């Protein structure tokens, strides 16, 4: 993957000279500032953050799914793959971003590699658990109905695993949105950028900190709700009781 070169953004220092009374007092929520900088700071950061999350969870899901198929089909590999995914998760995120910086440079690739690595932990476990959770008598019936191994997987095991798999996707998405903010300490990209700008000023710029953090939280909760709706749409049979 060729990483996108990023322009380094400087810290945004509020212009106290002609600022509103709210900004002069470093208020927690100065609506005027939000209005003024939605277009040049907040909205671009939000869009960058959405892009990071979608790409990271997408790639993470593809890798985790392939690994889960291996771990599910050949039990022997399950424990080692799980252990590797676990140890990746134990590496602190800031250190991982910092260590990749000399290798992949100031690019989105440097942000994406750790994000993808962290999704594997949740996704791998949940996909395997979902496939494992299909009751034995259901598999027995499938065999009794004359389904082949492949048909059983696509028509029985995979659909029944959807709730657990989607649970993993939800957790992975929400935590990716949170972890992605940390990368901005090194690479000025995503919603972490305004957060670190606000923290870097001599007095923490409260409005920017609060608004950027709130956007990250709202993005996470919105993504979670949308994925929950997708899960319900994919498993219509769970609604019939």
């Amino acid at each position, binding site marked *: 993957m060729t990483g996108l070169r990023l322009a380094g953004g400087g810290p945004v220092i509020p212009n106290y000279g002609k600022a509103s009374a709210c900004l002069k007092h470093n208020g927690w929520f100065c609506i005027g500032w939000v209005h003024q900088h939605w277009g040049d700071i907040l909205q671009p950061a939000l869009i960058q953050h959405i892009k990071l999350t979608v790409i990271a969870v997408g790639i993470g899901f593809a890798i985790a799914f392939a690994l889960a198929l291996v771990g599910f089909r050949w039990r022997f590999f399950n424990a080692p793959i799980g252990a590797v995914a676990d*140890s990746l998760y134990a*590496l602190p995120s800031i250190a*991982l971003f910092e260590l990749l910086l000399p290798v992949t440079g100031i690019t989105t690739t440097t942000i994406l590699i750790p994000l993808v690595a962290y999704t594997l932990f949740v996704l791998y476990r949940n996909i395997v658990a979902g496939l494992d959770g299909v009751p034995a008598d259901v598999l027995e019936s499938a065999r009794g109905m004359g389904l082949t191994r492949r048909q059983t997987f696509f028509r029985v095991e995979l659909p029944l695993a959807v709730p657990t798999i989607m649970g993993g996707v939800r957790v992975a998405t929400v935590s990716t949105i949170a972890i992605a*903010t940390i990368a901005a300490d090194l690479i000025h990209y995503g919603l972490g950028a305004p957060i670190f700008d606000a923290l870097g000023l001599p007095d923490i710029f409260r409005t920017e900190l609060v608004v950027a953090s709130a956007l990250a939280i709202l993005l996470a909760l919105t993504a979670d709700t949308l994925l929950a709706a997708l899960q319900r749409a994919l498993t219509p049979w769970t609604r019939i009781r």
Partner: protein
Amino acid sequence: MLTSLFVNALRFIPDNAHLLLQKTLELAELAFTALGISMLIALPLGLWLGHRHRGLFVALSVSSVGRALPSIALIGFFIAILGVGFWNIQIALVVIGLPPILTNTFFAIEGIDSDVVEAARGMGLTETQILTRVELPLGLPLIVAGIRIAAVFVIATATIAGLVGGGGLGDIIVNEAAYGLAGVLAAALCVSAVALLANALLGFAQRAASRRMAPSA
């Protein structure tokens, strides 16, 4: 280049053993104090809510909001209010550690077969006895799983506290200028070691709890 970095990091560990040990202990102090406080709050609350079958909405929303909170924003927020200090970082860490314990404890107790609880009540056990002798042992594996998730989260977040001068191994990780990449990697390996150790110990406790609860045929 990567190989030499690893070699240098592995050399950094014995050369700076004293510094790393001290920073590791600082990190452990930050993380395990916060984990202890989270348990003190979340365990009784989760047990009580689960026993009364109340607060499903609270348990669910605490867990999803808790995961959605970006830790750096949370730490920054408390620093903006309170300034940098051990207890201010503790508050942020407790906010991170509390949700998984609360949610898991709630669902561990809430999800226990109501027939079992009814049987215990029929045998004349008081509500406290039901909680401590029936529900707590049955729910223990899931409760320990929640503590395990919280431990990993809190250790990771305690490292991020280094970004704002919070102490611990994070201090080394964010100060590449002073310690070099080898130092960063060495400190990161120490954090992983603490996280993996906590994870392994609690995983062991979780398996022990499940084994004890498995029906003996």
